[in-house]
């Protein structure tokens, strides 16, 4: 109930801003909704965006349950892409798809996890704050990727910094003409997996114990350093799957900046989804719809720019995150009056 009210409030404020710009807010809303959900094609795009948001949202949520604020999803996603890309470039001439795809997905997870493992190690053993180190690692990842793409992985004779194309065995099955691909299934599996892990395994139990109360975790026999490593590696691996969706599913080659923005949006997705896999999935769908519908809206109405769409996202984050409990008293009053 409360999240819906929050979203409604955000849309009302957005509507006012849109009206000030001189656009009919109802028209804008209609364009936004039909742009996101109006056709099979637009739904396909929405789900494709939602897949990325699910991965990064889950990544933030897992770390958050361990009491760690991983804001390095951006860099981990980037490295995840590098991981699966390297695996495919190295093996796509020899291996069939059924073998190569799992290897590439594992490589994405491994690289993403490795990129998160360094800040985790620094936090666990050296006491460097993970918020600082993960955000710095985003820049390191970015610089590293530019260097590799420009100097090492660039396709011979190419003018743009991108690798050679993947052979078909390194491409994920997709719906013809759409970016929507098998990664969506991977995202749903990750949601289920995270749920089982956090609430139905002893490691998930220990991880949540550490997040709520590190002293109790120590008392309960959990090694905080090892648990910090585990939580961050899982988080990094989940973020790394963005590379699977983007490179194996859509671009079919390693490109630059395919992860742009998803890592940070994951924080908002996890926040809105209350760090629960189901909530993350729903929030990811909303953000996917906004991304796709916003693009259509910007295309149809020139006075609404891409930045306007970012403003809408920002307001939703503001209302469902920072001001999440603002309408609670009103709702309570409303229900109290209606109840006998």
């Amino acid at each position, binding site marked *: 109930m409360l999240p819906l009210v929050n979203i409604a409030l955000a849309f009302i404020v957005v509507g006012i801003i849109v009206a000030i710009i001189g656009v009919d807010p109802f028209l804008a809303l209609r364009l936004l909704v039909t742009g996101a959900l109006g056709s099979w094609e637009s739904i396909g795009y929405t789900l494709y965006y939602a897949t990325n948001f699910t991965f990064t949202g889950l990544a933030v949520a897992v770390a958050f349950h361990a009491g760690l604020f991983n804001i390095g999803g951006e860099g981990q996603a980037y490295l995840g892409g590098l991981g699966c890309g390297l695996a495919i470039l190295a093996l796509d001439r020899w291996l069939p798809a059924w073998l190569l795809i799992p290897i590439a997905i594992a490589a994405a997870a491994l690289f993403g996890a490795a990129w998160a493992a360094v800040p985790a190690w620094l936090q666990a053993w050296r006491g460097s704050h993970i918020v600082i180190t993960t955000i710095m690692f985003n820049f390191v990842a970015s610089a590293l990727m530019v260097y590799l793409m420009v100097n090492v992985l660039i396709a011979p004779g190419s003018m743009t910094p991108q690798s050679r194309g993947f052979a078909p065995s390194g491409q994920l099955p997709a719906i013809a003409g759409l970016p929507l691909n098998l990664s969506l299934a991977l995202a749903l599996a990750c949601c289920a997996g995270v749920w*089982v892990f956090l*609430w*139905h*395994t*002893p490691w*998930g*139990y*220990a991880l*949540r*114990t550490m997040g*709520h*109360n590190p*002293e*109790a975790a*120590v*008392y*309960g*026999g959990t*090694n905080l350093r090892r648990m910090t490593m585990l939580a961050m590696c899982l988080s990094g691996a989940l973020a790394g799957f963005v590379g699977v969706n983007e490179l194996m599913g859509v671009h079919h080659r390693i490109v630059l900046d395919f992860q742009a923005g998803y890592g940070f949006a994951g924080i908002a997705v996890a926040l809105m989804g209350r760090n629960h896999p189901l909530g993350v999935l729903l929030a990811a769908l909303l953000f996917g719809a906004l991304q796709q519908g916003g693009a259509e809206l910007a295309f149809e109405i020139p006075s609404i720019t891409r930045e306007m769409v970012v403003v809408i996202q920002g307001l939703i984050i503001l209302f469902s995150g920072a001001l999440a409990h603002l309408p609670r008293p009103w709702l309570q009053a409303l229900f109290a009056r209606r109840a006998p």
Partner: protein
Amino acid sequence: MQALTPAAAAIELRGIDKSFGVVHAVRGVSLRIEPGTITGIIGENGAGKSTLMSILYGLYRADSGEIWVGGQPVEMASPRDAIAQGIGMVHQHFMLIDTFTVLENLILGAEGGPLLAGGLAAARAELARLARDYGLSVDPDARVADLSVGEQQRVEILKVLFRGARILILDEPSAVLTPQETDRLFDILRTLKERGVTVVLITHKLREIMAATDRVHVMRQGQIVAERRTVDTGSEELAELMVGRKVRLDLDKVPVGQGEILLRTEHLSLVDDRGVRLLDDIGIELRAGEIVGIAGVTGNGQSELLQVLAGIRAPSAGRFTVCGHAIDTGHPGDPARMRELGLAHVPEDRLRQGMVAAFQASETSILGYQDGPPFTRNYLLDGPAVGAHCAELMERFDVRPRSPGLRSSHFSGGNQQKLVLAREIARRPRVLLVGQPTRGVDIGAIEFIHRELVKARDSGCAVLVVSVELDEILSLADRILVMFAGRIVGEVEPRRADERTLGLMMAGAQAA
């Protein structure tokens, strides 16, 4: 009516009612506190006494009812209103800044202008006057961190008087004091009373009510169930009123023969990062079938001793053996390994260590035992098994309400403690470490917890109890060790011990 009242009450509460959600914390309480008296409010944990005082101090708003101060109805919207009415509160946990001097702490929130110098000078003069009038002397330039706990409490009281309070509320003031310091506190309270200050003392300790108050109000389940003149009542009657039934706090203990040594420490020491010696050459022996009590004022190394023995902290020097297995600096233990060796630990601070407030009771009931059967099979937690285990513990230890799915933080202190104790005892440990077994626990549960500890001892468990409650140590322990400044300063037999000698040892004076 007004004419019949000889003098207006210092405080009068009329029909105060307060609910938190479904919990009806205070139910229509009316009480009168006469000026210039020491009034006690006693009740079990969760009886509503803290809530009532928080309403009086403006921290909570009552749902209904009136507060009258000095014969006038007043509106208490915030502590600021309470202070303006001359009401001051001394909290259980001191609200002092350690690195500031006494004077600087005193003017916090009443700095008196953009430059400190003027305010400090005025405060110094006022402090001298308070010291003279009330006999409360504290060095104004001493750093709070360098003061003893008793002196820090005096600073808290001065802070309240400095704001012009004529009505002083003290919430469980003796929790951190030695018996001697408590006596000194009561002397101060009596001086304040002679000077016309009204004192309200909130406590769950019967002895303090009997020692310090003129009148006592007993609260149970949100209501005032009795009001007595202290001279007309006794501990037994008050205990019965608090709990609502007869209580027996004395334990029938059968002496047990010498069992084998299950825990032995040799020259055990712990030095922290700053080089402070927290544990100094500890040598103790714990035998099967005995309860050894460690008495001492909080902060003299008892917590650290428990942490080292439980494997949470590694000793800096020395060694100890648990059921024949040695732990030393070269072979550190960890809590999981200690559990495997047969050691169970009920931590001092259950909210910070022993449980996770946000977890369901069933999740709390497996903390530390989550790995391996019966709770984990094929790498998955067995939810039904965990729930059944928790339900069984709740049944056996009478934890109320019997809801394994309820958040741990929604249980009362006593029930939380029973759950933690149940978890640790249910494993039939050979060595049981218990820190503050009944801190924040009501009398009814104290009785139960003590009996369970004795039962564990009778079944051959070696029990080490650390407590700041001397009564508890005296009634539970077969042998008493006293800790001071990280050392064991003496061993006493409970039959020969009394509070005075123990108190002196706890304060560092050598036993005669």
